[in-house]
């Protein structure tokens, strides 16, 4: 079958094909580097680390301070209240967010504590009277960068909402407890009046503990579905190195299909077919030669993920961790054989390139490389 002869010839041809080598080795490395670094920024901005958010506290009372303390305690937000020691005002905050320096700004309006206390008292009074509660709520403002994605915006907004609800609850409780004591005292005095004992009994409701609202009755525990030894958050490196390695393997269509098309065009194939050579051997030589190239490519990408990317500030690629579908033992046979197929089918380089780009697009979308696995049809 002359398999080794064909393999040697293919490798020799490829070694002379500088453009092909660039496409096979340099292009995937560039893709891995650029896209990993880009996605690394996204990961950092959207959850891997805390989000820096501006906090404009115009309130004179305790609400703004309590809210800031509560939000900082969540670990999700890191509040910035001053630029170079100068307290941030509303307009500067809005401009900073619009410029994209910050993604969010939380604004507590002036007299918010007083407004909240008045609203809470009004609500408590209506509640004790059995009336419909109608109050004018205080209004917190949340500026966000228009470029921030919806899901991320919702997450931050929910986080702020949680802090606000907690403080609003405390406000309501305080107002309710205060009014309840007065109501009870009046009622008892009224009952004791005929006996001349009004004012003899003093109602004292227990003082609520400062942290009574901080202790949750129900706790929601978030857990990663990954086994314990794996980190909770995926990293751009774990995502991109295997994904673009797989993508890079499809680049072999250019030299591989190219040699097949060239062999047909310049009659080398015709000559070969008049020789005692089998088609299986001929194609096998190409498949094995390019399989070897794929493995070399794979090794190069692992080295990039392991040693080069950490130098650029990303986490190190860990071969033992899950890496998305692309990394789960996807065999290089597939791209090699499929590219060989394009070489057989395509009549020209243009056709091969069009087939290839379409095919790659399909693979990226259906294979979980560019689209999350849960969106892929099984």
């Amino acid at each position: 079958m002359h398999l080794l002869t064909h393999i040697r010839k293919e490798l020799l041809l490829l070694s002379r094909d500088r453009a092909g080598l660039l496409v096979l080795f340099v292009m995937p490395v560039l893709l891995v580097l650029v896209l990993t670094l880009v996605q690394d920024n996204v990961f950092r901005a959207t959850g891997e680390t805390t989000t820096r958010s501006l906090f404009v506290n115009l309130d004179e009372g305790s609400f703004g301070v309590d809210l800031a303390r509560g939000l900082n305690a969540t670990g999700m937000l890191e509040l910035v209240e001053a630029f170079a020691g100068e307290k941030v005002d509303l307009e500067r905050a809005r401009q900073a967010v619009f410029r994209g320096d910050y993604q969010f700004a939380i604004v507590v309006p002036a007299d918010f504590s007083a407004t909240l206390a008045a609203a809470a008292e009004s609500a408590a009074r209506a509640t004790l009277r059995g009336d419909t509660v109608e109050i004018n709520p205080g209004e917190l403002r949340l500026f966000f960068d228009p470029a921030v994605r919806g899901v991320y915006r919702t997450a931050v907004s929910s986080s702020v909402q949680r802090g606000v609800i907690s403080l609003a609850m405390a406000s309501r409780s305080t107002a309710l407890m205060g009014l309840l004591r007065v109501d009870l005292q009046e009622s008892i005095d009224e009952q004791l009046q005929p006996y001349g004992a009004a004012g003899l009994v003093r109602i004292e409701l227990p003082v609520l503990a400062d942290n009574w609202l901080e202790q949750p009755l129900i706790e929601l525990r978030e857990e990663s579905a990954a086994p314990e030894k794996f980190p909770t958050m995926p990293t751009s490196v774990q995502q991109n190195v295997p994904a673009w390695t797989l993508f890079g393997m499809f680049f072999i269509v250019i030299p591989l299909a190219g040699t097949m098309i060239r062999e047909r065009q310049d009659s080398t194939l015709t000559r070969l077919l008049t020789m005692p050579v089998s088609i299986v051997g001929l194609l096998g030589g190409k498949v094995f030669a390019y399989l070897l190239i794929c493995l070399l490519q794979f090794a190069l990408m692992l080295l990039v993920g392991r040693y080069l990317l950490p130098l650029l500030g990303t986490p190190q690629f860990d071969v033992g961790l899950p890496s998305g579908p692309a990394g789960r033992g996807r065999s290089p046979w597939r791209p090699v054989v499929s590219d060989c197929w394009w070489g057989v089918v395509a009549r020209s380089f243009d056709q091969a390139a069009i087939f290839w780009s379409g095919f790659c697009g399909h693979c990226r979308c259906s294979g979980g490389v560019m689209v999350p696995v849960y969106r892929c049809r099984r």
Partner: protein
Amino acid sequence: MSASVQDSVISISGLTKTYPGSSHPALDHLNLEVARGRIFGLLGPNGAGKTTTISIVCTLLRPDTGRVEVLGQSVPAAAAAIRHAIGLVPQEIALYPTLTIRENLTYFARVLGVDKDLRAARIATCLDLVGLTDMAQRRIDRCSGGMKRRANLAVGILHEPQILLLDEPTVGIDAQSRNLILEQLREFNRQGMTLLYTTHYMREAEEICDEIAIIDAGRVIAQGAPHQLIAGNPACENLEDIFLALTGKALRE
């Protein structure tokens, strides 16, 4: 002088071939005998069926009907054996352009099964025969047209085939290279190789061929030694006159 069936190395009778979608047959009951040790010229206008005939003889194409035997073995049934015995020199430069002449010859020698111990010597002989010994390390894409043609020829004779099929081996090269190639073909023939040869150069065919068949529309319309054909047509001074007289002057394609 026509060859007897007994010493024919290529025997074709009633050969027909029609390509899919074509209303006219490329070969229409073609009959041909090529005797051992001859240089046999196959002449004809474009589309006459020359390349189809060679493609069937070298097992690339399957005939629709008819019988083709090469060295007594039937095409396509004995394709594997026939491929060992024939060498093809296609009209195109069927070599890998980024490999050197020696790398091309080494690859094809391996594919042809030239014995490992003899391979280097055989490649050296072929390079010497086509006058490319000093250029062996040059890449094909950096060779002149004449050098490429000679390298193309060298691959065809690597395994010392009994029959060499040449499809316009001198097209597009200068007079010196053409002369050298024709000399080499004569030398191969002197060593016992049978040559089946297509060309558009009538003078070249007249000069080199022992026997000529002119085919048109898939049929042989004249066959014989060049001097016999000329002698048999008093109105014609040379082979080109005969060719035009038989095939007409109208453009074919």
